[in-house]
C-alpha cells in the first residue's frame, strides 16, 4: 500500500466513503450567500477515483490523491473551527481528471453555491479552471501546478497559487546547492540547530527535456545561476527527447565532471535517468526539478528502488518535509499521519494549507465578494500561518504565495514512509531578525519587474 502502512485499506476506504456520504448530504444543503452563514469550497480532485490510491509513483495522480487527503484533513479541522464560532464550512470534492471534466465540474459546483474552487495538477487543467473562474468571477486556488506560465502570460486575476512557482523552486535549488552550508533549526540538536555542511556546487550540468515548459525552466535556471545566485556556472547543458536512452548524456557528464547534475525532466524520465545513471557507474551528485509528485514518499521510494546507489543521500527540494521539526510543523505532520495514515508531503500540505486559508480569508475579511477577496489578498490584509514559522501572504504582482521551501535528503528504504527521508534545511532563513517577512520570502521567485503577468 505504499505510504499507507499505518492504516489498513479497509480503514482508508471507510474514511473516504464517510466523506462521500458527507458530500452527498452536502448536495442537499442550500447555498450560503453571506460569510456569516458559512463558506462552501469546491475541490477539483484530479483523480479518476476518489477512493483508490494511485499506484504509479511517477503519475501526477499520486500528487493529486495526496492533495485530496490534505484538503479533506483541512476541511475536517476548519469545519470543527467554524462550528466553534457558530459558522459553517463545507468542502465538496469531485473527480475531475481532465481539463474538460474540471471545467464541467467547476460549473456544477458554482451552480450549487460554491464560491471558491481549488485544484489544478497540470498546466492545462489549472489554466482551464483559472479561465472559468475569471468568467464566473470566483476565486481559484492552484494547489498543484508550479508552471511559470500561470504566473506570467497565462495569469488570471482570480487565480492564486499555493503551489510554489517554477521560479521559487529554481531559486531554492540554486541557493541551497551553491551555498554548501546550511543551518537547520532542529530543537533536538545540542545547539538547537544542525549545521549541514557539503561541498558547494559550482559546476552545474543541466539535463533538460525538449518540451517548451522544461526549456523555460532551463532558461530560468540559467538566470538563477548567472544573475541571482552567484558562484555557480553551467558546465554542461544538454537537451534530451522523450524515450531516448541517456548514454550520450552520460558521456557528456563524464567529460564535464560537474559538481551536480540537475534534471529538468518530467517525473517518469527522472526515474529513468536515475535507474540508468545508477548502472553507469558515474558518481556525480544528481537532483531533479520538484514537480509535485516527485515530492511524495511514493516517488522517494521509487527512486531508492530504481537507483539504490545514487538515490541514497540525494537531496530533493520540496514544499513540505514531514520530518521537519520547527514551528510546530512536526506536530502538524504527525496529526495528519495519525488521522489519515498518509505522510504530509508537499502536495498534501498545499491542499491542506489552501483549504485552511480559504476559510480564514472569508472569516477575516468578512465577505464572499470575489473582488473584495482579491483585494484583501493583494493588499496582504489577511496573513496566513502554514506552520512554516513566518507569516505567509500572496504577491500582488503574480498572486504567488510567498513561502519558505525545504530540502529532503533520502535516507534509505524503509517500511515507515517517514524514515525514507529527512529534513536537512529550509530556505530562506525565517528566523533572522529585523526584516519584514515579505522581504525575506521574496528572495525566492520572480520580482515585480520580472513578471510578464498583465491582469485582464
Amino acid at each position, binding site marked *: 500500500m505504499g505510504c499507507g502502512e499505518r492504516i489498513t485499506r479497509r480503514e482508508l476506504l471507510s474514511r473516504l466513503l464517510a466523506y462521500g456520504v458527507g458530500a452527498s448530504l452536502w448536495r442537499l444543503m442550500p447555498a450560503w450567500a453571506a460569510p456569516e452563514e458559512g463558506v462552501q469550497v469546491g475541490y477539483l480532485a484530479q483523480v479518476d477515483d476518489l477512493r483508490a490510491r494511485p499506484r504509479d509513483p511517477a503519475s501526477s495522480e499520486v500528487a493529486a490523491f495526496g492533495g485530496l487527503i490534505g484538503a479533506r484533513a483541512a476541511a475536517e479541522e476548519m469545519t*470543527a*473551527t467554524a462550528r*466553534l464560532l457558530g459558522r459553517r464550512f463545507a468542502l465538496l470534492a469531485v473527480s475531475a481528471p481532465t481539463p474538460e471534466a474540471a471545467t464541467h465540474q467547476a460549473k456544477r459546483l458554482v451552480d450549487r453555491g460554491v464560491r471558491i474552487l481549488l485544484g489544478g495538477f497540470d498546466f492545462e487543467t489549472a489554466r482551464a479552471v483559472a479561465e472559468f473562474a475569471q468568467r464566473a468571477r470566483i476565486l481559484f486556488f492552484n494547489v498543484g501546478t508550479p508552471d511559470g506560465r500561470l504566473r506570467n502570460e497565462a495569469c488570471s486575476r482570480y487565480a492564486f497559487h499555493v503551489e510554489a512557482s517554477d521560479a521559487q523552486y529554481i531559486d531554492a535549488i540554486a541557493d541551497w546547492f551553491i551555498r554548501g552550508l546550511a543551518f537547520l533549526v532542529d*530543537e533536538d540538536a*545540542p545547539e538547537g540547530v544542525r549545521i549541514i555542511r557539503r561541498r558547494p556546487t559550482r559546476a552545474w550540468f543541466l539535463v533538460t527535456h525538449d518540451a517548451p515548459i522544461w526549456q523555460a525552466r532551463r532558461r530560468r535556471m540559467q538566470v538563477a545561476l548567472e544573475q541571482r545566485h552567484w558562484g555557480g556556472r553551467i558546465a554542461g547543458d544538454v537537451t534530451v527527447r522523450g524515450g531516448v536512452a541517456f548514454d550520450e548524456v552520460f558521456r557528456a557528464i563524464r567529460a564535464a565532471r560537474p559538481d551536480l547534475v540537475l534534471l529538468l525532466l518530467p517525473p517518469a524520465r527522472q526515474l529513468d535517468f536515475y535507474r540508468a545513471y545508477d548502472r553507469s557507474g558515474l558518481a556525480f551528485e544528481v537532483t531533479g526539478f520538484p514537480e509535485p509528485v516527485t515530492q511524495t514518499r511514493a516517488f522517494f521510494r521509487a527512486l531508492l528502488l530504481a537507483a539504490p546507489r545514487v538515490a541514497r543521500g540525494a537531496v530533493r527540494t520540496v514544499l513540505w518535509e514531514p520530518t521537519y521539526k520547527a514551528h510546530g510543523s512536526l*506536530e502538524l505532520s504527525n496529526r495528519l499521519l495519525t488521522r489519515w495514515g498518509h505522510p504530509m508531503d508537499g502536495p498534501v500540505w498545499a491542499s491542506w494549507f489552501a483549504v485552511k486559508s480559504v476559510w480564514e480569508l472569508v472569516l477575516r475579511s468578512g465577505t464572499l465578494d470575489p473582488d473584495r477577496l482579491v483585494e484583501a489578498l493583494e493588499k496582504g490584509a489577511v*496573513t496566513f*500561518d502554514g506552520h512554516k514559522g513566518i*507569516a505567509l501572504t500572496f504577491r500582488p504582482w503574480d498572486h504567488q504565495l510567498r513561502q519558505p521551501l525545504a530540502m529532503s535528503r533520502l535516507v534509505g528504504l524503509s517500511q515507515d514512509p517517514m524514515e525514507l527521508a529527512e529534513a536537512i534545511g529550509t530556505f530562506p532563513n525565517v528566523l533572522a*531578525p529585523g526584516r519584514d517577512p515579505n522581504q525575506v520570502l521574496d528572495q525566492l521567485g520572480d520580482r515585480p519587474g520580472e513578471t510578464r503577468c498583465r491582469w485582464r
Partner: protein
Amino acid sequence: MRWRVCLLVALVFLGGSGVRAAPNPQAVGRRAFVSNEFGGDITIIDTQSDQIVGRLVVGPPGIARPRGLALSPDGRTVYVAVTDPWPKRKSEWEFYMAVDVASGRIIGKYPCGSDPERLTITPDGRRMYCSNEDEANVTAVDLRTNRILATIPTGIEPEGVGVSPDGRWVYVTSETSHTVTVVDTRTNEATKHILVGTRPRVVVFAPDGKRAYVSAEIGGTLSIIDPSRHEVTKTITLGADAKPVGIAVSPDSKRVYVVGGRCNCVFVVDAQADRVIAQVKERMGRRPWGVAVTPDGRKIYTANGRSDDVTVIDAARMSVIRSIKAGRGAHSIQIRPQGDGN
C-alpha cells in the same frame, strides 16, 4: 542507561565567574524558576541577587523536556509540563509534575493528554488545567485526588492556558483555529470561542482581572479581551517580524510585557493607553520565549531559548540590567508571587 524520573536539587558553584556560590538551596525566598527545554532541568534564580541558587534535574537532557511552568498560589509548589522529543511515540516522559520547592521532592505526578506543554493552576490551588495539543481539548485535574474532572473540547492545536484571578474562567488558545476557548470552571464546559490573531500562543489575565491578553505569533499582535463579556476589545499590532509569545502583566495591571521571539525584544505596553510605549532590544538574549515580572514590579525576566540565558530588565528604565546563564533551551519562567519564604 535506563533513566528514571529523578529529581535532584543541585547546588551550582560558580566561583570566580562573578556568580556567587549558592546559598542554602532549602531557602526559598524570592525565586525565579526557568524551565530548560533541552537541558532537562529547571534553573532557580534568586531574584534579589540575580544569582543561580539551584537546579532541579527533571530528566535526561534531550529526552525529558520541561516546558510550561506554573506556581501554586502559595509559591511552595512548582508545576512542570514534561514531554519528550517524539510526538508519535509514547514514553515515560509525558506528564505534569509538582515539585516541592523547599525540598526538591516530587509531590505529585499528573496525567493529562499527550505532548504536555502549558498549564495553569487555579487561584485556590486545587485544580490544574492543561492543554492537549494533539487532541483538541483541555483537561481539568483535581490536584488532591489526581483525578481528571473533565476533558473540554477546544479549537485545533490548543496551547496556552490562563486562569482569571477569581478562578472563574480558564482561557485556552488554539494555534490552528486562531481561537480562545472560554471554560467556565464551575461547570467545566466551554461557553464561548473567541477569534483572535493568527496562531495565538499565550494567554494571561491581568492581576486585577479586568483584562486578558493573548499573543499571536504569526499575526504579530496582542489581543485584549474583556473577561466580563469574553470579547476582544482591541488588537495591538506588534509587527509581522516580532513573533510574540510570552506575556507578563505588572502587579498593578498597568503594564504588559510581551516578548518577541524573532525580534529578540520585549514590547512594553501601556495598559491604560493600549499602545506600545517602549521596545527593549539592546543586550537582549536570543529568542526570548517566556517572561515574568517580580512581585514588586521592578524587574522583568525573560527566558531566552537560543542564547540559553535569562535577561533581567529594569522595569522603570526599560533597559537590560544583566544576563544570567540558564540551561539549554530556556523556555518558560515563573516568579514566586510572595517575596519571602514559606
